[in-house]
């Protein structure tokens, strides 16, 4: 039976749900995440390790008969599974025999509302048997399941299911497939890579530009990939954060809410400015990456969180994307 894991390719041609008029995949407006909560509830230290790391995104269907009370047991079972996979010859490291230790814990701070399940963190550490004396443990892989304001999914799901639609991974793909297979087998769920379309990336650019950050914020950067060329060409467009914010402030009308129209106007301004200088129509290219002081996102479904106070805000949008992919 082996690892029943195939890396889902999102280059696959598929008819998405977006063509139905009734489907809410591209809502015309979204609520902005609330201003960063005071540090009463969330201790930034506990989630600091999530920042500045590259996380690959997946959507996960609800987990059947998953329980927060059995995390230690799950860690043991997963550990045994990994050892078994290694026995079968699916070892990931050639040469050095690594002893893999599994830790499964709960991150109660990462949730949007009380209806959300607390996030679950899975960490793989290695300890080289040669240095048993030091028993130095090195974190080699992390993956966490979370749900921030995932009520759309959880309200429609029967009792035995736990909704944690967003899965974020940092580490080798080989470990991801082993851990993923174990979860799929044990909880009857399904993982799929979550890609981010250029449309959603422009939402992120607009939403994140509007966030208040301290003066030393980094520039906003947009990366575009030019299609139909014999050699791939990427265009990088960097904008001073204060200019970007000033532009956004003139565009946005109702505070606390963003509409598709406002995002379009914002992006169009940036595109026409670029066209004026370089005579290139960025609107004919594909937006592949957005970087702001809050976070950076790549269309292949890769995210990096840069500010702890906006962590849940970004997770809220990602949860929404994951849920759209599942439904």
């Amino acid at each position, binding site marked *: 039976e082996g690892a029943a894991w195939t890396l889902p390719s999102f280059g696959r041609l598929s008819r998405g749900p977006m063509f139905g008029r009734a489907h809410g995949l591209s809502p015309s407006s979204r609520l902005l995440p609330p201003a960063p909560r005071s540090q009463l509830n969330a201790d930034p230290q506990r989630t600091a390790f999530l920042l500045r790391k590259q996380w690959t995104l997946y959507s996960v269907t609800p987990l059947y008969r998953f329980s927060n009370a059995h995390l230690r047991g799950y860690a043991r079972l997963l550990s045994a599974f990994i050892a078994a996979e290694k026995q079968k010859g699916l070892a990931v490291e050639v040469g050095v025999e690594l002893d893999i230790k599994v830790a499964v814990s709960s991150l109660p701070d990462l949730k949007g509302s009380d209806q959300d399940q607390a996030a679950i963190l899975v960490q793989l550490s290695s300890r080289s048997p040669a240095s048993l004396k030091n028993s130095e443990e090195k974190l080699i892989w992390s993956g966490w399941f979370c749900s921030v304001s995932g009520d759309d999914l959880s309200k429609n799901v029967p009792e035995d299911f736990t909704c944690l639609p967003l899965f974020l991974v940092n580490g080798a793909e080989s470990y991801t497939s082993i851990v993923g297979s174990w979860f799929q087998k044990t909880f009857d769920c399904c993982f799929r890579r979550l890609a*981010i*379309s250029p449309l959603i990336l422009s939402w992120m650019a607009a939403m994140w530009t509007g966030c208040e950050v301290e003066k030393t914020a980094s520039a906003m950067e947009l990366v575009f990939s030019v*299609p139909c060329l014999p050699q791939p060409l990427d265009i990088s467009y960097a904008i001073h954060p204060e200019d970007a914010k000033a532009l956004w402030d003139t565009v946005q009308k109702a505070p606390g809410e963003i509409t598709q129209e406002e995002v379009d106007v914002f992006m169009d301004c940036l595109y026409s400015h670029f066209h004026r200088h370089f005579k290139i129509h960025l609107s*004919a290219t594909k937006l592949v990456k957005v970087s702001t002081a809050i976070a950076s996102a790549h269309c292949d479904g890769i995210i990096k969180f840069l500010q702890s106070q906006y962590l849940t805000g970004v997770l809220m949008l990602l949860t929404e994307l994951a849920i759209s992919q599942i439904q």
Partner: protein
Amino acid sequence: HLATSLPLPPETDRVRPRIDMIVFMIDIKSKYSLKNVEASLAHVDVNFFLGKVCFLVTGVGRVNYCSVEMNAIWNLGEVYCSPVLFCELELEGTRVATAQRLLRMLEICAGHVPGVSALAFGSLMRNSAYV
């Protein structure tokens, strides 16, 4: 006849045959193509919108490459009272089927199908757009 935008160059006005149907192609991966179509629409005589115009949206096979918001396209179809068709040019089957469909529509618009007018067919089309 294929054109990248409207209006058509005036030099060829004399030699141009009668235009029976206009298909506006929007590539869902390119916001620019939408803007281009929107600008070109302004140059079309209003009589064409009685069943002789349709919008063809391409690139729909890859949902994650979408740069154009669907609501904007539905809106266009409604405002200009014209059907919206979807097609994935990379798939031969869909390409051929769409071409056949467009040819059939052209026959009707040119008046070659007795008993069916462009206007009547256009209003039928508007409610079923899927390839």
